[in-house]
């Protein structure tokens, strides 16, 4: 199999991860570890598919996926931000709820195909010029418009986090909510917005799977990819630009594992599945040893902030 084909398949496999990873970065940047990614992706996958099936409109499908998953994230935000519940437990609850929700509504559509209007709208479109770049051109610029949409999402997230006042405030909340509070930043509002947009992105990642990646609805569309996204956030050190590299790296690994199986080549193909997680652990450990300022987890990640405890 040619390198171009592997790269192209890797980008396609990585796109759902990219959306979800961007979403989780936004959430973790305000200090909220949301383990509900898997559930939100499931909700987005099924609601996006249903909206697409009944309306035939790609935009409505995207909207339904983003909004439904954002509502899931809103429950998480209400509980963890306002009600100060434990983030881990609340996130897991969201995953259980989302998985049940998706199975409940989705199972009747197993085997249904995405309508042609949507399939053609999301069909690969070669960008003139760029798609001619050797090796990577085809992989990056001869893809579905949905993939191009993820590039836009990366750029917007990066500008938001690093170049806007809101983004800097967001980062401050994750690092030091006391200081952010003291300087008059409306912490809870920021948290709500980041977490909810994060959910919308996870939903878009899920809908990419049901609308573009598979096109025929299956029982469990997401298949644990939400958890990979949680790992990816660490791997890319909470940086939306690096998220591209990370998501495609994981996407390519998944593709290679899948291809090698056909050749009955080596006993280690099943162990290859563990590689992304092992690499993530190594990154996590190296970061904690080096204590470099740039690549750390947001200092307040996982802790709730209660002003009275200051």
């Amino acid at each position: 199999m040619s390198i171009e084909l592997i790269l192209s398949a890797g980008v396609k496999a990585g796109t759902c991860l990219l959306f979800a990873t961007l979403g989780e970065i936004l959430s973790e940047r305000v200090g909220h570890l949301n383990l509900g990614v898997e559930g939100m992706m499931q909700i987005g996958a099924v609601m996006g598919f249903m909206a697409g099936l009944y309306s035939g409109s790609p935009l409505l499908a995207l909207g339904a996926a983003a909004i439904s998953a954002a509502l899931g994230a809103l429950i998480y935000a209400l509980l963890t931000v306002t009600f100060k519940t434990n983030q881990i437990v609340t996130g897991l609850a969201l995953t259980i709820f989302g998985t049940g929700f998706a199975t409940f509504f989705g199972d009747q559509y197993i085997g249904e195909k995405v309508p042609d209007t949507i399939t053609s709208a999301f069909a690969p479109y070669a960008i003139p010029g760029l798609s001619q770049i050797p090796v990577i051109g085809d992989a990056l610029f001869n893809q579905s418009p949905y993939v191009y949409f993820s590039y836009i999402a990366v750029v917007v997230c990066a500008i938001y986090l690093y170049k806007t006042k809101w983004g800097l405030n967001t980062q401050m909340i994750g690092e030091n909510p006391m200081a952010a509070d003291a300087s008059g930043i409306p912490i809870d509002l920021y948290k709500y917005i980041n977490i909810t947009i994060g959910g919308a992105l996870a939903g878009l990642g899920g809908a990419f799977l049901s609308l573009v990646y598979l096109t025929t609805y299956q029982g469990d569309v997401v298949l644990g990819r939400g958890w990979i996204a949680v790992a990816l956030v660490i791997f890319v050190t909470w940086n939306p630009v690096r998220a591209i590299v990370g998501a495609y790296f994981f996407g390519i690994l998944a593709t290679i594992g899948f291809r090698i199986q056909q050749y009955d080549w080596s006993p280690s193909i099943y162990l290859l599945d563990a590689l992304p997680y092992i690499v993530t652990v190594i990154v996590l450990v190296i970061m904690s040893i080096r204590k470099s300022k740039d690549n750390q987890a947001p200092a307040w990640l996982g802790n709730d902030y209660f002003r009275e405890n200051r």
Partner: protein
Amino acid sequence: MRTFHVIKREPLSRKKQIIIRLLYILGAILMSSLFILAAGANPLEVFAGIISGSLGSMHRFSSTIAKTVPLIILSLGILVAFKMKFWNIGAEGQFLIGGVGATFIVLNFPDLPLPLMLILMAATAMVFGAIWLLIPAIFKAKFNTNETLFTLMMNYIALSLVTYLQYDAWKDPGASGMPKIISFPANAVLPEINGFNIGIIIAAVLVVAMYFYMNHSKTGYEISVLGESPNTAKYVGINTTKTMIKGVLISGALCGLVGMIQTSGVSGTLSVELTGGMGFTAIITTWLSGLSAPLIVLTSFLFGILIQGGSYIQTAFQIPASVAEVIQGLILFFVLASEFLLRYRIVKKDGGKKA
């Protein structure tokens, strides 16, 4: 201008706490009913189905217990870690690795007599589980590596390992190409008493032991202090690293033990489907118990009913089992919200001064 203000409240009486919790569970049931109605089914039928499917006959009851037992033991393991505020969300992985340990003994020493076999399987499962959690704990102690993310990753590494064993290294060549590990021989199967495997006795003993350990032993006390405040712990002369490692070893060993009980007593072999997500469910049952060993029995039983009842209504009424998952999620949301009102209260503030 802030007219409302959230403050911590004095602990409520036990009775009030229970009433508030029950009200919220009622709210969750109402919400679930709306959900079921919206989906075009009859909520009463669904709830009745869940109850009769989990408790309606001796056979169903024993199936419910078979789902409750692993939840109890996993929850006890998680409890020890959570008491120290060591966020072990890797119970799923320790469970799997425990299963690997037990299977390792069966495959390598297939002819041991039953008692010795079971003891050796359990011991290996516990050691494997403990080591699986010890790895993140060592990095936590040395470099303050985030244990939540580390233990989460260890789940997937364990799952890949089991996949490799099932599809490759330990694959049964006699299974005509089916990727499965051999079923355990009779001398490696947990005995049953009246249709219940003896896991239930193990769980009962462990609950009592854990209660006394946490409330009446020195280490249990140290673990609690460490969780409340590491600084206090250091101040009163507790060796915090040593205490953490002790707690972690217990936590991992208990979760690993479940791997032995489930392979030997329930599934009869090791496979990637061994856990059924129970390592994650147990985090929730632990949390809902308020980190109390006796209450873990109650929360685990409640979830055992939901899981077993859910799979029953699927076969009996063709109502998807996923209804049970949705109900689980809703109950959790409501109970989590209720904890807020148990801990805080909202007061009106006279002035509009910025706090």
